């Protein structure tokens, strides 16, 4: 049952019909990305994911990584798969041609990422981090560092990690103790221990490039004392060849709940040579710029796993015969009806479907703005896109991984007891989905980022970039009678979100505890409204296509799912609003001793 078939039709619906990426064909990365080229790329990527990555997903989970004589071994088949992946040029998709990249849009890369996460999340953690590091070094690295490291990260012969976490410090990076001692003009010696380093060591690539947050001598305490260093596993000679081993090694690997084929390493730095990236004291700033795209990718992990869970649950629900439809047998010639006739099973399937397809459209829309923020010729348009990306990143990261866990769990539920049995692969999806809520900043921290920073930033400018188009859309559409069933609930939920936003900002200015207590519920409310507006747009596009296209069933399915979303999922907003408005007191009242 461990099947997955890339949802290419839906992906092309989002890219071409909903977002119409063709309208940006005058902007560099989109010039080459004509619909036929994008289709060819996605089809080839789908094949690779289905035929190379998927078959080693469960075996990778069973086998896990091993540490042997200080070297991490990935599970059987991972090296070959990685080689196929890198040699196929998939690590280079959205990279700059100046460093050997294909110069294609990030939004196409994210579509490939979704398929890879659906097929084998643990595998994808390795190239995903390399791409994030590529972005960071490209933005903050010196020309020399870029020349030395980017071509190898682009062609996938080297990979990268990010080393923030230490045993005593996860969320609160101000506590970081790893030290950097100036050595020569360019070099530093790093000493300290990092934990939970994804891909800290492995046998997939010739070299590994660690991006490490550390503290220079006499640096102030807290995050302003942090600088960012690049520490390669093997030093690199001036001609680009590999030199001696650097003083960084893997001490142990963690045994964990999921993504077992992704090595989570304790990394020891013993006077390891490192190079400063960006300015001294700006380490966290540089790191965070890498994390925007990394966070979007983590959000996509939730979607990717939820898509696989949905596909398997759908197939199972059509085949599993159990009980009779409550209104009378639907398949009287068989011993029982397939469970897809039961309302509760349909509720679960539709919840997954509605979140998945809505989330895909929302995520690709954000990813499109990553491209526009970098490449749009008009600086005002770049700024607008950048604002949207900043605002939406914590929402995508947090909500997608939350619902990803919910949805994989629903998928397991549809399998009944068989879902709990390893063989069907459903429990692995649940275990693999769980980590997304934790790494790249826990979801609680994402919510704080949204309420404490993003919505108040630039006097609410980021927020207006998002709110104004929704307002316009509702006004434009409200006179079309067939759109009313979507625009009406959207308008109501949107109004609530606006009011609650004003309340959170106002209360938060007086008492930060109010904003903190509201944060997680507020993020969910925000995400539900964002998905609501996405579904309303999907309904609009689908109605237009329904009138003239041969794919009636596809578009009807969209409209019916949009209806389900508006009537069955969006109403959660009401209870969230009430919870938020109850303020911090019900949360803060109980004495810590009384828990």
């Amino acid at each position, binding site marked *: 049952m461990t099947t997955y078939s890339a949802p290419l039709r839906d992906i092309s619906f989002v890219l071409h019909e909903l977002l119409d990426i063709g309208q940006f064909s005058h902007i560099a990365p989109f010039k080459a990305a004509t619909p036929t*080229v994008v*289709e*060819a*790329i996605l089809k*080839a990527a789908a094949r*690779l994911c289905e035929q190379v990555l998927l078959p080693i997903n469960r075996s990778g989970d069973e086998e896990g990584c091993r540490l042997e004589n200080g070297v991490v071994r990935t599970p059987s088949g991972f090296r070959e798969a990685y080689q196929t992946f890198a040699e*196929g040029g998939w690590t280079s998709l959205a990279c700059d041609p100046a460093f050997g990249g*294909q110069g294609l849009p990030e939004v196409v890369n994210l579509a490939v990422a979704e398929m890879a996460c659906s097929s084998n999340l643990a595998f994808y953690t390795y190239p995903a981090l390399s791409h994030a590091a590529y972005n960071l070094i490209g933005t903050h690295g010196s020309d020399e560092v870029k020349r030395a490291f980017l071509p190898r990260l682009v062609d996938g012969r080297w990979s990268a990690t990010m080393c923030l976490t230490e045993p005593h410090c996860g969320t609160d990076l101000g506590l970081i103790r790893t030290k950097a001692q100036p050595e020569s003009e360019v070099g530093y010696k790093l000493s300290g221990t990092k934990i939970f380093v994804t891909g800290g060591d492995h046998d997939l690539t010739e070299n590994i490039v660690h991006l490490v947050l550390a503290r220079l001598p006499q640096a102030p305490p807290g995050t302003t004392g942090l600088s960012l260093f690049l520490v390669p596993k093997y030093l690199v000679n001036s001609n680009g060849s590999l030199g001696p081993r650097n003083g960084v090694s893997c001490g142990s690997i963690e045994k964990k709940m999921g993504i077992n084929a992704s090595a989570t390493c304790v990394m020891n730095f013993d006077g390891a040579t490192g190079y400063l990236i960006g300015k001294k004291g700006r380490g966290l700033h540089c790191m965070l710029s890498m994390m925007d795209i990394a966070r979007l990718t983590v959000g996509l992990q939730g979607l990717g796993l939820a898509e696989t869970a949905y596909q398997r649950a759908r197939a199972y629900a059509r085949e599993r015969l159990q009980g009779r439809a409550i209104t009378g047998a639907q398949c009287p010639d068989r011993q029982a009806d397939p469970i897809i006739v039961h309302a509760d099973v349909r509720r679960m399937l539709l919840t997954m479907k509605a979140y998945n397809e809505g989330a895909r459209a929302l995520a690709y829309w954000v990813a499109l703005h990553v491209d526009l923020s970098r490449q749009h010729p008009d600086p005002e348009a770049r700024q607008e896109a950048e604002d949207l990306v900043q605002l939406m990143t914590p929402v995508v990261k947090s909500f997608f991984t939350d619902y990803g866990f919910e949805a994989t769990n629903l998928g397991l539920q549809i399998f009944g007891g068989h879902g709990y049995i390893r063989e069907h692969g459903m429990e692995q999806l649940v275990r693999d989905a769980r980590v997304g809520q934790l790494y790249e900043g826990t979801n609680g921290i994402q919510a704080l980022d949204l309420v404490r920073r993003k919505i108040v930033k630039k006097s609410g400018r980021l927020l207006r970039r998002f709110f104004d188009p929704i307002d316009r859309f509702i006004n434009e559409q409200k006179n079309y009678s067939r759109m009313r069933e979507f625009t009406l609930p959207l308008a109501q939920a949107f109004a609530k979100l606006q009011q609650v936003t004003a309340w959170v900002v106002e209360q938060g200015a007086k008492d930060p505890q109010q904003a903190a207590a509201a944060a997680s519920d507020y993020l969910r409310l925000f995400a539900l409204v964002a998905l609501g507006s996405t579904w309303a747009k999907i309904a609009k596009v689908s109605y237009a296509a329904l009138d003239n296209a041969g*794919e009636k069933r596809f578009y009807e399915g969209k409209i019916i799912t949009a209806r389900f979303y508006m009537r069955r999922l969006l109403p959660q907003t009401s209870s969230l609003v009430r919870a938020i408005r109850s303020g911090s007191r019900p949360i803060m009242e109980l004495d810590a001793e009384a828990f």
Partner: protein
Amino acid sequence: MKILVPVKRVVDFNVKVRVKSDQTGVELANVKMSMNPFDEIAIEEAIRLKEAGKGEEIIVVSIGPVQARETIRTGLAMGGDRGILVKWDAEAEPLAVAKLLKAIVDEESPDLVIMGKQAIDDDCNQTGQMLAQMLGWAQGTFASEITVGDGSLNVTREIDGGLETIEIKMPAVVTTDLRLNEPRYASLPNIMKAKRKEIAEKTPEDYGVDMTPRLTILKVEEPAGRQAGIKVESVAELVEKLREEGVI
């Protein structure tokens, strides 16, 4: 050596096909279409010959609707050099396809045609043989290994009960079996390069071929559904049941 590889756009092998309600054929609307897997093997073999310095140019040909252009493009992304699309929207029977291919071979004069032994949609397994006959060329069908000699080919064929190796003179038609090779995954740089490769567009009239079908499909039906099984208590009972069913 110039190599011609015909490819067909067919329902993807993963798709569970459904018969149309009017029983005239299978449902093709909105199903995933891909290159016939045997044709992928043919392209792969052509590319390997080229990489080994034994081929110069690979021409990928398809006869089908405008979407078959993407099937050709897939072949070009694997390593084909240029394409020819003969646009034809209706059913194309093996005889008509063989006639078209003959006309193209006359025009292009390749030294070798490598093609799938059959297409997985209609499973005809006829086109290659017909083409060889029309051209008066040697044929090596169901190939699981090809070695190029001097003006000849050694083709190992998968036949009932084993393998047979034959030597045939070139020019020749070779049809591929599953074990010939494992087709590569198209790489991203090659996909990007493929979009600049030329695909000529033709029609059957350009080659003076009459595509009118000669076969009439009376009815297409689903295979009978599997009957529920029964559990037997003992080997003796099993043997008895098998006897009853006339299996042994």
